């Protein structure tokens, strides 16, 4: 049973993600996380800002339960299924991040330089968090999907729009990682 407490390999995680997707479709639904953001906006009263949000969000209750489950899953995995919460990174990655000013890269899942409370309380830290979220929210709705809907469902179903979107994901990701992160850190 010890393997459960070790980090899981890619060839375990990938097929298991497909298993989750299989059951979502089998039960007559779909696999898409970012559409929950629309549902949450609708519940939060965004209908005042755009008529789009005046749909009956109750039809998406199943998907809200799914993301509620992911929150519980994150809690369970962290509290009960993880002994060593460090990430075994490529030494080159650790060095590259040290050059940017990120200390002890991989010691935890997330860098304190972005996600600590102290960082959030600085203007720069707060702007980074909120802008990152706005880009993800705006981009996933513009493209009509995120990693689940486009990269996994769309590519598995040979969808050309998804291939274009995933190419876009990488163009954006490479620009951020190689050019913008070195400017802001």
């Amino acid at each position, binding site marked *: 049973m010890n393997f459960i407490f070790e980090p899981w390999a890619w060839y375990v995680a990938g097929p298991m993600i497909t298993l989750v997707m299989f059951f979502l479709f089998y039960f007559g639904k779909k696999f898409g996380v970012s559409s929950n953001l629309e549902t949450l906006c609708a519940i939060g009263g965004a209908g005042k800002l755009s008529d789009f949000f005046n749909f009956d969000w109750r039809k998406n209750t*199943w998907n809200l339960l799914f993301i509620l489950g*992911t929150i519980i899953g994150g809690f*369970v995995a962290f509290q009960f299924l993880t002994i060593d919460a460090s990430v075994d990174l490529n030494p080159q990655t650790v060095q590259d991040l040290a050059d940017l000013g990120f200390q002890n890269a991989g010691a935890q*899942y997330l860098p304190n330089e972005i996600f600590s409370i102290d960082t959030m309380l600085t203007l720069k830290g*707060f702007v980074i968090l909120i802008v990152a979220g706005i*880009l993800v929210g705006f981009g996933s709705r513009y493209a009509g999907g995120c*990693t689940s809907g486009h990269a996994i469902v769309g590519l598995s179903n040979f969808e050309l729009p998804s291939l274009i979107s995933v190419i876009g*994901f990488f163009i*954006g990701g*490479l620009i951020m990682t190689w050019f913008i992160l070195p400017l802001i850190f």
Partner: protein
Amino acid sequence: MVYIAINLLILKEMKNIKFLILGILFGIILSKAEIISWYRIYEMFKFQSFHMYGVIGSAVLTGMIVFYFFNKGLIKSYIGEQIIIAPKKKGFYRNIFGGIIFGLGWALAGACPGPMFILLGRGVATIAIVLFGGLIGTTLYHMLKSKLPH
């Protein structure tokens, strides 16, 4: 009366409990495979690790097999109906520009929407700011979409 109403509500949602369980499984998988780690996303965009490519690649390959059975009608839904995978919206500009904007955020936050919720469960309080940003971004898109190329 209230007691009956609550029981009826629970009964109505019982059929949806399976989605809560699938979500828990999804949260555990993405946690245990470190997909929710900011560093794993950075490493991926630096081409310094195969891990994320392996995860997405093996999910897509096995997904192709599953969708083959769905599309051929060899596997039906739980009520015996043909499983239909809704086609994605066509349009070069929407997919490329939306994709690029998403990618910028993905690499900065080190998380796409699924991992954001999972990190919330992990107790990462600051991810709530990112999620709130995600709601702002979603609303902004729907306010501005008539002016955007699609």
